[in-house]
C-alpha cells in the first residue's frame, strides 16, 4: 500500500472529489477538448486571456482521480500566469511525472509536486498530463480534440 499512497496522495484525492474551477467560464476566448481513449477520460479546458497572460481558466469533464486532480490543480496554479510560464511549468511537470525528478527549483511546482508518485505508474502518466496537453491545444487555438494516444 506504500506505493499506492505515493500515487493517491491526500491532496490528489481531495481535488478529485472536489475539483476547483470546475465550470465553463462566462467569457471564453480559447477552449480545447482532450480525450484519453484508453480510459475514456474526457476534459474541456476553457481560457480567458488578457494579452499574453491567463486571466481565468477552468475545466469540465470526466476522468479518473489522477486526471481530474491534475486538471483541478493546473487551473489553480495557472491563473494569472503568462503563456511562457504555463509552457515552462508543463515542461517541469512532465519531467516530474515521467521521471520523478525536477531540474533546479522544485518550489515553482508548488503543490503539483504531489504528482511525483505518478512516475512509478507509467500507464498513469497520460492521466496526469491530459489536462496539460489540452491546455496547450487551447493556447495554440487548435480546434481538434487532442488525444493522448
Amino acid at each position, binding site marked *: *500500500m506504500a*506505493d*499506492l499512497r505515493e*500515487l*493517491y496522495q491526500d491532496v490528489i*484525492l481531495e481535488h478529485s*472529489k472536489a475539483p476547483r474551477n470546475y465550470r465553463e467560464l462566462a467569457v471564453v476566448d480559447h477552449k480545447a477538448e482532450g480525450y484519453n*481513449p*484508453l*480510459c*475514456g*477520460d*474526457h476534459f474541456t479546458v476553457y481560457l480567458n486571456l488578457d494579452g499574453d497572460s491567463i486571466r481565468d481558466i477552468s475545466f469540465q469533464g*470526466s*476522468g*479518473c*482521480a*489522477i486526471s*481530474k486532480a491534475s486538471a483541478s490543480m493546473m487551473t489553480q496554479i495557472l491563473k494569472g500566469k503568462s503563456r511562457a510560464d504555463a509552457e515552462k511549468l508543463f515542461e517541469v511537470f512532465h519531467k516530474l511525472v515521467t521521471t520523478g525528478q525536477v531540474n533546479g527549483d522544485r518550489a515553482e511546482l508548488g503543490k503539483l509536486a504531489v504528482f511525483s508518485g505518478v512516475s512509478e*505508474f507509467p500507464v*498513469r502518466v497520460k*492521466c496526469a498530463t491530459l489536462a496539460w496537453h489540452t491546455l496547450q491545444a487551447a493556447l495554440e487555438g487548435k480546434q481538434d480534440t487532442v488525444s493522448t494516444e
Partner: protein
Amino acid sequence: MTTAAKIPSRESAAQRLHVVGTGFDVEKIRRDFPILSREIRGKKLVYLDNAATAQKPRAVIEAISRYYEQGNANVHRGVHFLSEHATGEHERARRRVQRFINAPHASEIIFVRGATEAINLVAQTYGRVQVRAGDEVLITAMEHHSNIVPWQILCEEKGAKLQVVPINDDGELLLDEFEKLLGPRTKIVAVSHVSNALGTVNPIGRIVEMAHRKNIPVLVDGAQAVPHMKVNVQALDCDFYAFSSHKMFGPIGIGVLFGKSALLEDMPPYQGGGDMISSVTFEKTVYNKLPFKFEAGTPNVAGAIALGAAIEYLNRLGMDNIAAYEHELLAYATEKISAIPGVRLIGTARERAGVLSFVIEGIHPHDVGTVLDQEGIAIRTGHHCAQPVMQRFGVPATARASFALYNTKDEVDVLAEGILKVQEVFA
C-alpha cells in the same frame, strides 16, 4: 458429475482419470498453466483478464517449441520429409478445428490472424460483392469494434447503411427490434455470440432462424464464446463463425473463419499471393480450391499446430464440464461482487458467460484497476473496444473481471477483498 460419457474414447486411462476420478479438479488444471504460479508485486497472481487473452497450458507452449525444434519447414510445397510432416500437422490441426466446432468439412476452416481478420475477410470479399448502394448491414449495439468498423468501412465504400439492433438495460438484444430491422435491403447480419463487455450470450439459433427466413446470411463473432462453451456451427446453422486462438488458450496470431462451402466458393479471394493459387500466368491466375483460396502466403504453421494442441487440451477437460464449472463460478462471482455496497453491475442478462463488468460509485474504473493491480489482481478497465456499449449504459468505462476454466472461488474472494480496499483508498 457424469463426465465419463463425454470423454473421447481414444483418450488414455490416465487422461480419463484426470477428469473422472476427481471431478473438475481446478487445482490440478492450474498446474498445467505455468504462468499461474508466478507472483506479481509480491502477491499471488489473480488473472481475471481472460476476455483480453487467456493463459496458455504447457501442452500449447511445448507444441510451439517442439515445432521449431523438431518440425520447422514450409508447408504445401516441399517434397522433403520435414515439409511433408509440417503440412500433415498443419492440416491435422485444421481437422481438429473442424471437429471442435462441428463444421461439415475441413475445407470450410480458414486460418487467419484472429477473429478481427476473419470478420474483415468476410466484409472485404462477401461484403464487397453482395453489398451495393442503398443496401443494409445489420449489427447490434453490443458489438466489439472489430465487428463494427469493418462493416462501417464497407458501408462507406458502397454507400450502404449500417443498422444497429438495440439492447435493453440488462444488455440483452431486443429480438422484436431485430426482426423489424431485417429488411429487403439487409445483405448480412453480424452479431457476437457472447458480448466481450457485458458477457451476454446471444440466442444465435433464433437469430439465424429469423434471418434465414428472409434469406439473409449471418456472421457470428465467436471470440468470447469458444473458450466457455461447446460451439456447434451446424446446430447454430450460422453462415460464418469467427474466433481467435489466443482467447481459447492457444497462441496469439492465429484464428479461424468458418464459412459454409457454398458461400466461400462464390467469394473472391481476400489477399493474393502464394498458396492461394493453382496456376499463374501474366494473363490469368486460377485460384486454389478451398480453404487455400483464402490463405495467401506462408501460414502460421506453429500457431495452427499449437491451436490444435489447445483444442486437444480442451477436449480432454470436456467443454461441457468447463461450461458447467464456469457457470457456477460466474454465479458465485455475480452474487459476491454485486453484494458489495456501491458496486453496480453493467450487463445483467439472464444468459451470461465469462464476464463480470462493474462500476464502483464515485471511483473511476482506471483507479479501480490500479489499486487491484497492487494486489496482484489483473482486470481490464476501460471501454473494452466497445465504446457504443459504454454510451448505451452512460458510463465512460467499466472495470471488467473475466473468467476462464482455471479461475477459482478463492480468486473471486480475493477480488471482493480488493474492491473493499479500493473503496478504502478512496473513502
